């Protein structure tokens, strides 16, 4: 397939996945705020979220002070913020538009309808009164997009590059969500295996749809150590780092070309580390340093994928 087409498909699904994870992050924050409404806690929570998504500086430049409503508005709708949900959906749709001929009409229509429908949300109402409906809607549209892609698209390279974008983005996002939560709670919390603030940990689980899964897998108290284990090392957990990297590796095997051997090797190396790794070792290293090293390696992988498949050089 055309390199440019692969590039658009890959970014279409990355932006769709990113919008979903932003909504998840915002949703969990809003729920937590209902429990602890002290002003400085609320401010610290949203500051941490803005940092996680890499938007604290531009936000402060535009707003000065962090409030819940302004942070929700900024991450959800701000057009001048290229990382907002609105802009992610916009770019997902732009990328889909550029390759609409490669997508099934159902896939294109789903992404196009999402882009049309976001306009029916009233910015002010969402951020100050009922953000939950909006976040639910974003998640639902992302589920729908993924479902329609998997349910209708031919299982060829076009689908593989679409999946590659989804899983690489999800790996990145899960790592960031975890990182932010561990930063917000006591840095040493995970090590001590202290049940700590039950609501904080259950909120984290809910933000990645893992609360019920946790119950099913562990049938026990929620502890930070197990939360980390579930979201990092569990193959069967669809949003875990291991699951995502396993899918990334499988996809890279399928689309391999004459230049991509080293990229595949690196993906395999990351995956093997997760497959055979122990949570104790990660905690020993320090979870935050473990996660930032993971983020560096996935970002390197993203750059290599772009070079091997998506932007081809003049005559090679």
């Amino acid at each position, binding site marked *: 397939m055309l390199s440019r087409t692969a590039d658009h498909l890959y970014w279409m699904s990355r932006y769709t996945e990113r919008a979903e994870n932003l909504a998840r992050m915002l949703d969990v924050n809003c729920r937590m705020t209902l429990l602890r409404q002290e002003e400085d806690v609320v401010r610290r929570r949203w500051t941490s979220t803005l940092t996680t998504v890499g938007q604290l500086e531009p936000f402060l430049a535009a707003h000065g002070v962090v409030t819940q409503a302004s942070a929700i508005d900024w991450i959800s709708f701000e057009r001048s913020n290229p990382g907002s949900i609105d802009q992610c959906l916009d770019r997902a749709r732009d990328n889909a538009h550029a390759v609409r001929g490669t997508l099934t009409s159902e896939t294109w229509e789903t992404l196009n309808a999402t882009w049309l429908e976001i306009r029916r949300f009233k910015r002010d109402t969402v951020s100050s009164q009922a953000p939950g409906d909006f976040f639910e809607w974003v998640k639902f549209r992302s589920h729908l997009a993924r479902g329609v892609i998997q349910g209708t698209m031919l299982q060829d390279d076009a689908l593989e590059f679409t999946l590659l974008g989804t899983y690489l983005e999800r790996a990145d996002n899960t790592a960031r969500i975890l990182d932010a939560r561990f930063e917000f709670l006591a840095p040493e919390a995970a090590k001590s295996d202290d049940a700590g603030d039950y609501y904080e940990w259950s909120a984290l689980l809910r933000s990645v749809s893992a609360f019920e899964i946790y119950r099913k897998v562990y049938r026990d108290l929620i502890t930070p150590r197990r939360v980390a284990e579930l979201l990092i090392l569990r193959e069967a957990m669809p949003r875990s780092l291991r699951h995502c990297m396993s899918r990334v590796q499988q996809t890279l095997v399928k689309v391999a070309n*004459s230049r991509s051997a080293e990229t595949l090797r690196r993906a395999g190396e990351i995956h093997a580390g997760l497959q055979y790794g122990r949570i104790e070792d990660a905690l020993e290293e320090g979870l935050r340093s473990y996660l930032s090293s993971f983020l560096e390696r996935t970002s390197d992988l993203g750059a290599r994928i772009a070079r091997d498949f998506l932007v081809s050089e003049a005559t090679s």
Partner: protein
Amino acid sequence: MATAPLFNEMHADDATVRPHYSPYAEWLAETPGERILEKRAEADTLFRRAGITFAVYGDETGTERLIPFDIVPRIIPADEWSGLQRGLRQRVTALNAFLHDVYHDQDILKAGKIPAEQVLCNVQYRPEMQGLNLPMDVYAHIAGIDLVRAGAGEYYVLEDNLRVPSGVSYMLEDRKAMMRLFPELFARYSVAPVEHYPDLLLETLRAVAPGGVRDPTVVLLTPGAHNSAYFEHAFLAQQMGIELVEGQDLFVDDEIVYMRTTQGPQRVDVIYRRIDDDFLDPLAFRPDSMLGVPGLLAAYRAGRVAISNAVGTGIADDKSTYPFVPEMIRFYLGEEPILANVPTWILRKPEDLAYVLDHLGELVVKEVHGAGGYGMLIGPRASRTEIEAFRARIVADPARYIAQPTLALSACPTFVESGLAPRHVDLRPFVLSGRDIVMVPGGLTRVALREGSLVVNSSQGGGTKDTWVLAC
């Protein structure tokens, strides 16, 4: 402005519905008004959701405009279509013969049937094409011939579109929408199908591949997602199952064209291009073009790739060439034209010029290289001052102009704010020339939605209708 009696496609007079429209008129009488309103709204949703739009440039909110779709079909009886079809086949055959001739021996110029300097000095004449042999001697593989009906209902060819004619996707989408919205109407009528157009197009494109290529790779070359006709480019590529490429996706190495794929370079044999000659190859034409492929023309001239339509077809659909098409038919085919031209005064001829200058108030004067309604005088609509200003321009350079009578285009009932009302229509059939000449029955009917307007262009408030050729 129309002073001649108007030909109505549906009604012979106030009291009489033409026979081929009577099942429709009965259906209309039986169907409650609210249901029709509902269906109109549903049509709007269908088109918007599918993104059947054209881009509006520079719109901050990212709005894309829908091409208005009218739910009243334009119906053509079978015998009427078979006459049109013979005429179209004849005309396109002659136009292709003309293109082959002007780029080879130029017999028609030597015979004095068309002034040689008018052809050879025209910017649309591409010297690069001189002496180049194309598969089956075909140049315009895809032709969109605009037909109008006037006065008592006789058809005229208004213009030939032989460069990158567009609109066929609307023809196909209109039919899809009509079948979905009004299945019961298709039970009352036996409508000739059009859905196989993409198959015919692909077959035509494969047929014109360079000699010796057994299983040619065909691509569609688009200027990109921001082009107003992008929907159609993506639609056709998808329907034919071929790659939709931009200039940046292609490169030429040793006179062979390749596309860049995730598995490395892949050879391309046929390019269905939807960009103009000028932008095809910055090395051969406009050096500032970012849309084309450097070296493409050299590969084309070496016979390593087919370009469809061929380079240089503009010389045959130029307005200065148009008046000579009936003469081409006689010259190349030895036949009388089946489809009439709109009578045209050629202002480079002194006697035509004299007549036109005396009758400016009733004629339409067009610039020969103009398009899209620019550089045009509509006599009956123009003020005294405008006419005098235009007169001065004509006198200064008569060869730049042609003139035609203002035609009263036929009208077809159309849903507008106030209900059902007649609006002017034209018809663009798409004629494909490869191994054979083929076309699907009908074409794209465009309708001028503003009362009295004759402008059917989508950029100026035009809409479309489904066109039904009845299978007798």
